[in-house]
């Protein structure tokens, strides 16, 4: 037989374990209470017997045998309600006074078992048992007689029974409640897990928009569901970007591929001389290189976005990177008929990737070179901001329209005005990917006219922040 599902849930098992532990601790508590209470009750009984004996023991020789007998019968009449028994034996051991059911077996403390004399002694403190157990103390009076006082232990056993009963009920009810609580908890848990399962099944079937339902309680299950949803969001975004990239590749590579094909076809049809063929082959190699460079740029961006390069991050001198790139491009900018102003604060350090940061800045500078007319001023600054170094590349060129600004970091996005300039539309996508990898943010502002790109790096060198 298969165990019902509810019994197999972890929350029910936990509840059952707690119920078991609860019953066990109740048992321990019971044992302690029972033992202590019995002890106290027995001590009280002994004290009561002893005080009774003290009062009856004739300390005054003037008090005669008759006084004792009268006193005993007197006490029997008044103290019968307390379950006490008295017995006075003469020298031969015969009971001459009192109502003790039988003679004591020895001197001192003992337990006497006698038939229940119930009825004769009033029902209030009597048990229905056929026998009574008496706690007795036999005391030699010195003249050969023995005085015995006994107390019915019925009250003690009654209290003990009450304790047992109370604990039995408490354990039973507590255990049941714990189990019941476990079932209820498991039900709620199972219901939510079922909800999760249904959602996941839907997602498996291809409904990528489906998300796990959250109760809003903010508990662990909600956290789990929330994390799952975040993961799904991220996966979906990745799938979307993958889809986007695939269609981008299909679209953006079709142009150079068809151009290559046209060139080859033209060569087959028109080339007559060796030189014609050589020109055609050279052209084909150029076309192919263009396609390959687009491919490798895409692969590089994908690799950067995957974040695996973060493992090779080291503390690097960002100022040196900027200085190197600026020096490399200064003559290029100069030859293009533009001016470059450089202002780099020395020895700014961040944790990052030397090669990628070099390429990031190079791409930004190349953008400024390619997309501005001669006579444009370009400036490159690196200074320390509040959060970390800030790299700025500005120009007073034509600028980027406000509506286009958010799209420029997308892959293959090219402004209409720049369709005719060389480039694959991946330069800024890489700039963005490198910034994301370094936890840096990029802002684009209008210089009226012109554009400034600002890269806000985060200070990631902990030893520097600690000394502040």
């Amino acid at each position, binding site marked *: 037989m298969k165990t019902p599902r509810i019994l197999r849930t972890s929350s029910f098992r936990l509840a059952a374990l707690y119920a078991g532990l609860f019953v066990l601790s109740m048992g321990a508590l019971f044992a302690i209470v029972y033992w202590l209470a019995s002890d106290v009750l027995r001590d009280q009984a002994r004290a009561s017997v002893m005080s009774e004996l003290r009062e009856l023991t004739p300390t005054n020789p003037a008090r005669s045998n008759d006084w004792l007998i009268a006193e005993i019968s007197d006490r029997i009449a008044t103290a019968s309600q307390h379950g006490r028994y008295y017995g006075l034996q003469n020298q031969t051991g015969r009971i001459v006074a009192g109502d003790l059911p039988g003679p004591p077996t020895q001197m001192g403390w003992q337990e006497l078992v006698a038939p229940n004399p119930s009825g004769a002694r009033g029902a209030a403190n009597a048990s229905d048992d056929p026998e009574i157990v008496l706690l007795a103390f036999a005391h030699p009076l010195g003249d050969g007689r023995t005085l015995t006082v006994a107390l019915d232990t019925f009250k003690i056993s009654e209290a003990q029974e009450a304790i047992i009963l109370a604990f039995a009920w408490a354990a039973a009810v507590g255990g049941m409640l714990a189990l019941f609580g476990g079932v209820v908890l498991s039900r709620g848990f199972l219901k939510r897990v079922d909800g999760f399962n249904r959602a996941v099944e839907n997602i498996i079937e291809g409904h990528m928009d489906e998300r796990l339902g959250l109760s809003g309680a903010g508990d662990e299950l909600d956290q789990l569901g929330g994390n799952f949803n975040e993961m799904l969001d991220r996966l979906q975004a990745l799938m979307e970007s993958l889809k986007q990239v695939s269609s981008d590749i299909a679209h953006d590579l079709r142009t150079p591929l068809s151009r290559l094909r046209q060139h080859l076809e033209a060569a087959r049809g028109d080339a007559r001389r060796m030189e014609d063929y050589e020109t055609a082959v050279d052209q084909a*190699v150029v076309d192919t290189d263009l396609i*390959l*460079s687009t491919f*490798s740029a895409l*692969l*590089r961006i994908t*690799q950067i976005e995957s974040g*695996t*390069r973060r493992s*090779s991050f080291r503390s690097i001198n960002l100022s040196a990177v900027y200085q*190197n790139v600026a*020096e*490399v*491009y200064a*003559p*290029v900018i100069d*030859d*293009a008929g533009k001016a470059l102003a450089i202002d780099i604060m020395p020895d700014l350090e961040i944790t990052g*990737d*030397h*090669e*990628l940061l*070099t*390429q990031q800045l*190079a791409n930004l500078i*190349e953008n400024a*070179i*390619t997309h501005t007319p001669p006579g444009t001023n370009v400036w490159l600054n690196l200074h320390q901001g509040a959060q970390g170094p800030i790299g700025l590349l500005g120009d007073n060129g034509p600028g980027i329209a406000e509506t286009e600004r958010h799209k420029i970091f997308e892959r293959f996005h090219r402004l209409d005005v720049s369709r005719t300039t*060389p*480039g694959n539309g991946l*330069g800024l996508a890489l700039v963005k990917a490198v910034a994301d990898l370094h936890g840096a943010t990029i802002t684009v502002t209008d210089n009226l006219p012109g554009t400034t790109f600002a890269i806000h790096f985060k200070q990631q060198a902990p030893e520097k922040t600690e000394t502040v």
Partner: protein
Amino acid sequence: MKILLVEDDEDTAAYIAKSLRQHGHVIDHATTGRDGLFLAAGEHYDTMIVDRMLPELDGLAMVKTLRGAGVTIPVLFLTTLGGIDDRVEGLESGGDDYLVKPFAFSELLARVNALARRPPPNGQQTTLSVGNLKIDLLKREVTRAGRRIALQPQEFKLLEYLMCHTGQVVTRTMLLENVWEFHFDPHTTVVETHISRLRGKIDQGFDRPLIHTVRGSGYCLREDA
């Protein structure tokens, strides 16, 4: 030069071997890392060209093993995997240079030549000269025919690299990687601009130019035309 080519792709291997033989090199070809290891350990080669992905023993492990055994033959890694991680990994495991497929044969040839004729790494040489052009690496001074020429730091770095590879063809990519630490292909004329500036300083006003353009390959610094 005697070159060991370890490449499992038959087409690529045949193409590389044929082209290198046309340039007068002797080629031994192994198709697995294990065979490559045995060949490299047993014979003397001037250079090895090793594919990263090889059956039985991959290129990285093969080169690591060779380096561990004290074999110092220069190694050029070939790979279809792009990206910088692989390059760094390759260099760290004992490779000397790295080339990503697909590549132009001229690029491979230039790099193989540069590797095989690499000067021994001793810090003793502080002056280099080609014809009447001399540079002092310590004082960072350049003279041609006794006349002092002032160079910008980047120009000096470029000239130093060219002088270290005198008589060899250096490609655009080799210059980008080794002179400016650019491990990507810029879309602007970075290399051309710097070469032209350098030419303006060291060749202009002299009868015989030292910096030559090698069509389809790169540049070469040499005395005779």
